[in-house]
């Protein structure tokens, strides 16, 4: 028997209505009714898509976090050779926190912040030193940075997970939307953390080291004397074209930024006369579309971070009326914490030449100049 499909296939052939068109109409009607009676249905569907996307990226963050944790543990085992398993201690340090000071009364907040950060840094460093009994001092500094990366990615993961779960629990599309919008940037930062962990596990110079590299190259071969002036910070005395140059920089090759603010302050206060110029050299964040390794110069103090060092030099310069000059080498946030790229390393030589020109043009013979190389000195001796 041959089935008759004409009713399904051709309304005209069947003479008007057929089952297929009725079914389609019913589907349309039911969809219409759903959206009419349940107006937030579309939003619900969108929320579920967004949550799924967020979950996928959150898993990626978790993978990166676990990878960095493993790199940290392996490096501590390899370099520090502890006679116990450092994993639980690394996990404990990943949850370490620093509570910023109360700023309701802003008077003295800079020094309160300095005290808290110093306390945190010292205790963190001591914990890492205890975990790595066989590591050399500069390796302890670099391992401390590595554990800090582990802490950073752990915090990032926890915060993203918090907003994901909160958005899911409350079905708050606006909350989920905000975290989902910034997720690509957060994943990029997490990837940069991963590359940074590789750099710190081997003691490689990173993009942020460029300021210190310029200072180190300036004093290479012409250093007359060197001494420590503040924690992890040293002064190198030189003479360049009849100018007395004092280079302030973090002590390498371990991963530390030192205390350039305190170093410059102590140094200037100990000098017989005021310097004619304070020059800071640092890496700075470029804008999208700008070239990495581009050099710009201007006035002011080129120091990032929490602002303590910048504040100290600015305050000192204002009190003594010392002009401030600055060189900044542009790079992205990813480049700042990952192994140093060729364009950034080569920019250091160009800055060096520009720095010499500034010394020649702006300072008369016999004058004193302070040059502060700012940044993490990992991989720069």
């Amino acid at each position, binding site marked *: 028997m041959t089935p008759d499909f004409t009713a399904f296939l051709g309304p005209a052939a069947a003479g008007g209505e057929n089952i297929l068109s009725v079914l389609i109409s019913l589907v349309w009607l039911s969809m219409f009714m759903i959206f009419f009676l349940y107006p937030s249905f579309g939003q619900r569907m969108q929320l579920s898509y967004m949550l799924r996307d967020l979950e996928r990226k959150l898993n990626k963050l978790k993978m990166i976090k676990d990878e960095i944790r493993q790199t940290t543990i392996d490096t501590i085992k390899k370099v520090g050779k502890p006679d116990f398993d450092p994993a639980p201690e690394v996990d404990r340090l990943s949850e370490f926190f620093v509570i910023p000071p109360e700023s309701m009364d802003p008077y003295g907040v800079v020094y309160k912040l300095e005290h808290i950060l110093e306390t945190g840094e010292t205790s963190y460093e001591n914990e890492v030193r205890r975990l790595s009994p066989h590591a050399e001092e500069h390796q302890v500094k670099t391992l401390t940075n590595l554990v800090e990366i582990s802490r950073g990615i752990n915090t990032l993961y926890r915060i993203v997970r918090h907003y994901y779960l909160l958005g899911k629990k409350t079905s708050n599309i606006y909350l989920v939307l905000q975290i989902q919008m910034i997720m690509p940037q957060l994943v990029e930062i997490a990837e940069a953390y991963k590359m940074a962990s590789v750099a710190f596990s081997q003691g490689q110079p990173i993009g942020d080291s460029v300021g210190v590299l310029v200072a180190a190259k300036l004093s290479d071969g012409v250093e007359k004397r060197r001494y420590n002036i503040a924690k992890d910070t040293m002064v190198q005395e030189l003479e360049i074209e009849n100018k007395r140059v004092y280079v302030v920089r973090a002590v390498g090759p371990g991963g530390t930024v030192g205390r350039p603010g305190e170093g410059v302050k102590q140094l200037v206060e100990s000098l017989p006369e005021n310097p004619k110029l304070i020059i800071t050299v640092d890496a700075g964040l470029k804008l999208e579309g700008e070239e990495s390794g581009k050099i710009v110069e201007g006035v002011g103090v080129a120091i990032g971070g929490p602002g303590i060092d910048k504040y100290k030099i600015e305050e000192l310069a204002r009190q003594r009326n010392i002009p401030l000059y600055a060189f900044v080498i542009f790079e992205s946030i990813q480049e700042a914490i990952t192994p140093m790229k060729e364009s950034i390393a080569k920019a250091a030589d160009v800055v060096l030449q520009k720095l010499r020109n500034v010394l020649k043009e702006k300072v008369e013979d016999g004058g004193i100049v302070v040059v502060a190389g700012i940044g993490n000195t990992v*991989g720069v001796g």
Partner: protein
Amino acid sequence: MSSDSGGGFMSWTPRPRERLSQTITFLKCMDCSAENSRPFIEWDYIFKVVEGEKCPKCGGTRSKIVNIYVPEKKESK
């Protein structure tokens, strides 16, 4: 990068992965000042004096690390 709110397949394309090039250490022979390079070895640092690595030019065994960086590929014009 996903630009739609649902992370749909229409808009998402995998970003080409940036391959991490190998870090290179540049050394300067302390006898003949010739510069040479080799792959980065863990805990190398700039201005480290390396003993026991022969200079390919003069055979000197003392050299100083003068730079460490990741070479970038030159864009063809």
